């Protein structure tokens, strides 16, 4: 019973957003709320594409999510493996440097990151939005933990059979790390898709922004057409929500592990 009420309250904003996205502007703004539109206004969804730079923002969001997630999987898996399974001079220091970033709030490096991206002439470019997020201290930590927890026997056996370090990594250890890699992919995708502050800093024009920043800066406009904004928001959230419902167990476990981000 309590769960039912709680669940309804959780779902209500999503339902309300859907209803509003199918209403007329007058219905949204009527003092006595309309709980169901007189006529479903599917045209609002068409207008999203006509009146807002929705397609270019969607393209940016998709690209930054794919690039960042791909880069993090490659870079963090390699580094995580080396830190967990290889011995080399300077390992302790290098690891300490990377892990120390985990405890630092992002404000402590944003100004300087902006400066770097500006100096490189990357403001208002895709690479500027993507750049810092290619490297993840959290992902390295995650993958290192994954490789640390693997049995040493397998690796030892591969070595005795004369496999090179690269081959040991690729054919023996990497397949075992698949669950952790999917956790990394999910956290990275979720964060890339939803992140607001960094894209907001490095982009100026609506056309170059990803959806998160595009929607946030839409609000300032006086002539807000609520139903169209609602429809755009629904479309912006949809890919991640669908992904979540498809992969739910993994996402929940992964994020519970990840803590903050």
């Amino acid at each position, binding site marked *: 019973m309590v769960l039912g009420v709680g669940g309804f309250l959780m779902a209500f904003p999503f339902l309300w957003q859907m209803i509003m996205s199918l209403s007329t502007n007058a219905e949204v703004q009527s003092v006595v709320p309309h709980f169901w539109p007189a006529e479903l206004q599917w045209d609002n969804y068409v207008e999203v594409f006509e009146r807002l730079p929705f397609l270019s923002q969607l393209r940016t969001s998709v690209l930054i999510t794919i690039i960042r997630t791909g880069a993090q999987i490659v870079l963090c898996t390699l*580094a995580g493996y080396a830190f967990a399974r290889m011995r080399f001079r300077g390992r302790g220091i290098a690891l300490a440097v990377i892990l120390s970033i985990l405890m630092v709030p992002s404000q402590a490096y944003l100004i300087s990151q902006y400066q770097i991206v500006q100096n490189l002439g990357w403001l208002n470019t895709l690479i500027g939005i993507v750049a810092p997020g290619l490297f993840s201290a959290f992902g390295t930590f995650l993958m290192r933990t994954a490789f640390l927890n693997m049995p040493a026997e397998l690796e030892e056996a591969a070595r005795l059979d004369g496999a090179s370090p690269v081959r040991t990594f690729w054919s023996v250890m990497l397949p075992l790390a698949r669950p952790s890699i999917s956790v990394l992919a999910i956290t990275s995708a979720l964060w890339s898709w939803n992140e607001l502050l960094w894209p907001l800093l490095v982009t100026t024009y609506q056309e170059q922004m990803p959806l998160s920043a595009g929607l946030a800066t839409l609000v300032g406009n006086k002539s807000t057409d609520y139903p169209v904004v609602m429809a755009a928001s629904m479309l912006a959230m949809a890919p991640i929500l669908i992904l979540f419902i498809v992969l739910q167990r993994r996402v929940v476990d992964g994020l519970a592990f990840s803590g903050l981000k």
Partner: protein
Amino acid sequence: MTTGSPGLRPVTFPAARAARGRGAGAEARARRRDGAWPWLFVLPLLTGVVLFYVWPIIQTFYFSFTEWGVFGGSSWTGIDNYVRLVQDPQLYLSLGNTLLYTGIVLLGVPIAVYLASLLNTPGLRFASFYRVLFFLPYIAMPTAIAMVWRIIFNGDFGILNYVLSFAGIDGPYWVSTAGFATVAVAIVGIWSSIGFSMIVLGAGLKNIPTEYYEASELDGASRWRQFRSITVPLLTPSIFFVVIITVIASFQMFDLLFAILGSQNPILPKSMSLVYFFYHAGFVTNERGYAASIAMIIFVIIGLVTLLQFRLQRRWVNVD
């Protein structure tokens, strides 16, 4: 996982190796064979982290002692930024708003504990459905879902005030009245974080042996009594973890405030959070040096909270 207890490994391994008669020699040869590979694996990431994170942190610390001219260029001004900061009423206003926000969002923790214990009831129907439902707000894009909250909170036609009117309450203009705006954002904060807290707490609940509940049931303990005397005390480490994470996340609140209030809202100066204050100084009025000093204050606050977490966590581990 297939090899049994990890505690056995250090014992079995050297023994097996010694039996083969190779011992440390093979180990050393294997180590040498790694050669340059470790650095090839680590360098791409390490370079990026140093370039885009480590160096910027050092640089931001330096920036906090400088002032930036309108046309670029900066000059060393010592601790001027910090002196200005401690005298700036905006700092205390933002800190106050952030604390108010954090305080309200923390009220979500007991709710999450209660809901998580309900969700953990054995044999509950639709348990995974509820889990998904409560978790959805956590992964929804904050700026997108903020759009509907703006409508819900609207002073003229928002459904919240409509519902309140049945209770005889004349609802305020939530989003355009200072104070109420912070409360409104905090309500959304609770809504979006409760599912995550429930998952963490749920993992903790699974570690409580069911025998405790069975035994107390035989003694005739009520549901509420069980919740108070078994669930809450045994769940304390998880609850503490959730509280720390909530505090750290709340101190970094920006997205919801930006999206719900809108960047042109006239009450913004009175409703800023610490991070919004940082954003405003750094990227709206373009006082980068000043913003850097705000960043350092946030850094110190988050650092202290994290330190507290480590301290207390260690104590709990020792108690076990």
